[in-house]
């Protein structure tokens, strides 16, 4: 970085920090009007409710929503108001408030029955956000809605549900990996209680690491990412864990074909402190162990587990403390006792988040988060004296300070600062044979990442609103490091190279009338950590690498416009969104890449650019016995690399021309619920074989242009029925059965194409066979779920 750049960055940083402090002091001392503030919670469990609506019932344009911690603040002129509190699926509550002084009002909402008129009005308020909020491409998915849908093997999976939304694609048959609006799998910021989850899949990605029983809320932001988020180009998947019931003890669980789950929660100190602990483990191969006994593979096993835990303590209305942790692991053990051959392949994530919420005053909410996360992949194998080990991983230490300042109904500000220390260990391989040892001697890479942001949600009038923000990011690769370019040595914590990025973000809403609005936005993003896969989907073996002097930060700009309309008194929400994405410094492997452990992956990369554009159509109904949505996306995603076919633009593997999802849930009776999904997508692009050629008396393949052929179109229908024997029982224990069918009409969707050749050179004959491999046929499953609540 030149000294001039450094100076410019220094001044930008100084201006932003000064702005933050001015804002902070203004926040603390300004008291023009009176403020109604407090927390919105679930009356039954004490769980805070995220994005609950708090509205002046007589003037709905004056309102706010609760934040991630359930806190709201509404500043209004002196006067009498009727304030409504509403949340999807809960009964509304109305309060007469005489605002002659700032007032604290904590509200507990009770879960409602869907046909209850009051609840319908609450849902109506929630749906108004479709046309009234400046937010675009943002979808909240309460976990209860996710649980109603069919799931493969009965394993409820958040990541597979978001794949049913327009603009979001599955990275492969049955895979929990996802692509958003033409972005790569590494361009999604996946957060679990603010901790980055670097590998969100179990069992080669067939299951996600998120145990639905421990999850409270999921928010997907696929466009118009607010300035408070950074570090990824495409999307944010922000997952909040439950806090635990602070009123009474509860146990919840399920017994399925693949795994079983158990969640225990309850108060530590009633109404002040609670805990939740939730575990899940697979056991299918444990059950197979007796069959393996005495075989060539005795001792071979595979399982994964997840453990989520959270504890919180409310010191006062001003101070709260949360601690949450996640521990998950896949373990694959291979044993071949007859030849003393073995390997263990464990990998998994650990995250820990400590958060302190503090109210400086009734308008200024502060959160401090200290986050630790760690992803490790290991392969350890050998035979007799020979031992071989591969290790890679990412470890982050992160501190975040975030402020929410609710100045008045016209302005609400968010600002904060974020620091992360990254340690990224590339594939370090070592081998030993008796006393002789070898290793690749790759050192971990270290980096500092800073983010500083400021945003304002401005309501100019009932018709026009603007959400404008800016994020300034700095990323430094740190020593110990020896430059590959000029051999200069850098000591511990000494910056080897620094990148900066100014990332303006803005989105607006113009309301034509109360049911119809236009929205638009532009989002600049930078990404400093990268994961590149030469596979058709991401694998635990894929390695995260930082920006270095070799690898430049990825940069993206997304433009989006949309029309949003609600129909029939808000019974139906509809939207059309158009987007265009321009991506720079995209990364891929060279065409002749060979997975060689002796080479650092960054030396195998090629760099290029990308573009993606599309139209998303969405129709949603969330009231009544029948609800669900239909989403359709028409899109194109392309990449160009100077070192790949001379820069020819080719379709990315994440390109799907057509993508349709139909998602329905229907309450057949009090006892029976039905869920159904239908998915149709254009076939995935792949690089076809162009022909075969003889070398060493064998036929070898050679390939046509990259991604120039498609697999067959993908489509599938899933169905589930849930039976609750006594839905209105007042008993503490309740059970339900879920019967589901995945791929109901047994569509043979191709997973991949394989070629085999059998050549007898001397006799001059050969057969070549192309095979289409299908993984998931019709799969029925049954799961028993239960709940016990202390009376």
């Amino acid at each position, binding site marked *: 970085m030149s000294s001039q750049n450094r100076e410019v960055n220094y001044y930008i940083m100084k201006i932003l920090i000064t702005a933050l402090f001015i804002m902070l002091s203004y926040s603390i001392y300004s008291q023009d009007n009176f403020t109604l503030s407090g927390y919105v919670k679930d009356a039954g469990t004490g769980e805070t409710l995220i994005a609950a609506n708090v509205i002046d019932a007589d003037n709905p344009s004056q309102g706010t929503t609760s934040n991630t911690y359930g806190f709201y603040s509404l500043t209004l002129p002196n006067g009498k108001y009727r304030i409504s509190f509403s949340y999807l699926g809960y009964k509304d509550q109305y309060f007469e408030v005489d605002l002659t002084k700032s007032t604290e009002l904590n509200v507990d909402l009770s879960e409602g029955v869907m046909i209850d008129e009051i609840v319908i009005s609450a849902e109506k308020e929630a749906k108004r956000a479709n046309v009234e909020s400046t937010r675009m491409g943002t979808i909240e998915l309460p976990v209860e809605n996710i649980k109603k849908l069919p799931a493969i093997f009965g394993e409820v999976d958040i990541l597979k549900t978001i794949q049913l939304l327009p603009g979001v694609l599955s990275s492969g048959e049955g895979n929990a990996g996802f692509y958003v609006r033409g972005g790569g799998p590494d361009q999604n910021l996946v957060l679990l209680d603010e901790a980055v989850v670097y590998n969100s899949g179990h069992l*080669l990605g067939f299951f996600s690491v998120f145990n639905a029983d421990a999850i409270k809320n999921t928010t997907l932001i696929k466009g118009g990412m607010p300035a408070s988020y950074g570090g990824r180009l495409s999307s944010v998947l922000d997952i909040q864990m439950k806090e635990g019931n602070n009123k009474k003890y509860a146990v919840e669980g399920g017994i399925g074909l693949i795994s079983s789950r158990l969640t225990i929660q309850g108060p530590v100190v009633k109404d002040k402190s609670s805990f939740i602990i939730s575990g899940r483990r697979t056991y299918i191969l444990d059950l197979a162990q007796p069959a393996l006994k005495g075989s060539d593979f005795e001792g071979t096993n595979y399982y994964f587990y997840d453990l989520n835990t959270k504890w919180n303590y409310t010191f006062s209305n001003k101070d709260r403390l949360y601690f949450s942790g996640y521990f998950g692991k896949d373990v694959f053990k291979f044993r071949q*006792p*007859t*030849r*003393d*051959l073995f*390997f263990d*392949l464990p990998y998994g994530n650990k995250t820990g988040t400590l958060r302190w919420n503090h109210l400086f005053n009734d308008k200024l909410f502060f959160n401090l988060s200290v986050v630790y996360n760690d992803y490790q992949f290991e392969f350890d194998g050998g035979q*007799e004296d*020979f031992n071989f080990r591969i290790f890679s991983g990412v470890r982050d230490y992160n501190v975040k300070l975030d402020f929410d300042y609710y100045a008045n109904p016209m302005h609400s500000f968010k600002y904060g600062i974020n620091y992360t220390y990254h340690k990224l260990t590339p594939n370090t*391989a070592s081998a030993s044979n008796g006393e*002789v040892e*070898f290793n690749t001697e790759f050192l971990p890479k270290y980096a500092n990442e800073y983010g500083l942001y400021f945003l304002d949600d401005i309501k100019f009038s009932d018709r026009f609103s603007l959400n404008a923000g800016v994020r300034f990011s700095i990323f430094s690769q740190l020593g110990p490091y020896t430059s590959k370019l000029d051999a200069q040595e850098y000591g511990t914590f000494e910056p080897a190279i620094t990148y900066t990025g100014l990332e303006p973000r803005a989105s607006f809403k113009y309301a034509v009338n109360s049911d119809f609005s236009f929205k638009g936005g532009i989002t600049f993003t930078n990404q400093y950590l990268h994961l590149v896969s*030469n*596979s*058709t*989907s991401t*694998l635990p*073996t894929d390695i995260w690498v930082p920006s270095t002097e070799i690898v430049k930060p990825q940069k993206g700009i997304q433009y989006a416009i949309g029309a949003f309309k609600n129909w029939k008194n808000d019974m139906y929400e509809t939207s059309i969104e158009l987007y265009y994405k321009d991506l720079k410094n995209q990364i891929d*492997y060279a*065409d*002749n890449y*060979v997975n*060689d452990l*002796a080479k650092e992956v960054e030396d195998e990369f090629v760099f290029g650019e990308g573009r993606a554009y599309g139209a998303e159509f969405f129709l949603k109904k969330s009231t009544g016995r029948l609800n669900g949505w239909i989403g359709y996306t028409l899109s194109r995603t392309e990449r160009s690399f100077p070192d790949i076919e001379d820069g020819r633009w080719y379709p990315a593997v994440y390109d799907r021309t057509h993508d349709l999802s139909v998602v329905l849930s229907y309450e057949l009776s009090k006892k029976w619920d039905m869920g159904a999904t239908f998915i149709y997508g254009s076939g995935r692009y792949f*690089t*076809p*074989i*162009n*022909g*075969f*050629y*003889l*070398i060493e*008396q*064998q036929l*070898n*393949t050679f*390939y*046509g242009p990259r991604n120039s052929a498609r697999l067959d179109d993908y489509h599938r229908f899933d169905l589930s029925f849930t039976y609750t024997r006594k839905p209105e029982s007042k008993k503490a224990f309740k059970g339900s059965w879920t019967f589901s069918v995945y791929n109901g009409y047994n569509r*043979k969707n*191709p997973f*991949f*194409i*394989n070629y085999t050749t059998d050549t007898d050179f*001397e*006799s*001059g*004959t*050969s*057969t*070549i066979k*192309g*095979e*289409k*491999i*299908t993984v*998931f*046929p019709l*799969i029925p499953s049954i799961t028993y779920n239960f709940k016990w609540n202390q009376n």
Partner: protein
Amino acid sequence: MTIKDIIFLASVFAILFLGGCIEDYVPSTEETKQEIVVEGFIEAGEGSAPAYVLITRSIPFLSTIDLTTFDDLFVNEAKVTVNDGTNTVELTELCLDDLPPAIKEIAAQILGFDPDSTALNICAYVDLLDVLDRKIGGKYDLKIETDEAVITSTTTIPDFIPITKLRWDDPPGTPSDTLARLWVTIADNEEEDNFYRYFTEENNTGLVIPFSSVTDDSFFDGQDFEFPLNKAERRDGDFDPNTFGLYNRGDSIRIKWMNMDQAHFDFWNTLEFSRNNSGPFSAFNRVTSNVDGALGIWGGYAVGYYEEVVPF
């Protein structure tokens, strides 16, 4: 076995477990241009063979290929010359069917197949009189002129780094009385990057190429390095994890040990990666060729042969 292989095996398990299915697939039958393919070698060292070049054409996807189709793949009447720095030598085209039995035997030996069971009319361009100066440190330019194209390539023959020791050992686990494991030692040269390849032969049945036949010295640069040298398995044989890589006690075995330059190594390294990495999680990879105007390889080898009887 790479991690990719392990993941592939795991996914095969998963497919079997889940009851997935496999169906025939025929790719779209668009006409693809037939490429010219070069496979030529020049060797130096004890027991090394004269230079030769095979020129064939690629074929599109066909479910079965018969003898006539194979015969037609050979490109005849090309002008093939090799320059060794001093002399430019034109190689002679020999087709098996045209050769008297004695010469056929010699040609078969050079090309590495059994002349008695070969129905295919293999045609090769051979330095029949062995005129080229084949030596360590030599540089060799190949030029092929056909009706369609002019194809060129250059290769070198690097230093030979021999096997300094062969050692027999009981295999891990059981049984160990009928099978043995071979350990070899080499003294890698620290000054330069070295690239190795090997074939094995049992009881004079012909050299067999292992699934992974090449390595560079990244892991043992400049070291005296002992490692197990797996017996090459025939591609048409059944894979048996209990005998994989092990030699039968009492057999006569022969090892062909080779060094090559980087471009030559890159070809085999990418080709073997491409051969061994099929499956759901492997993207394609393109083979790095050192030939301009065609697919394939023009490669120089420094070679050495080692013969042993596997002890009881």
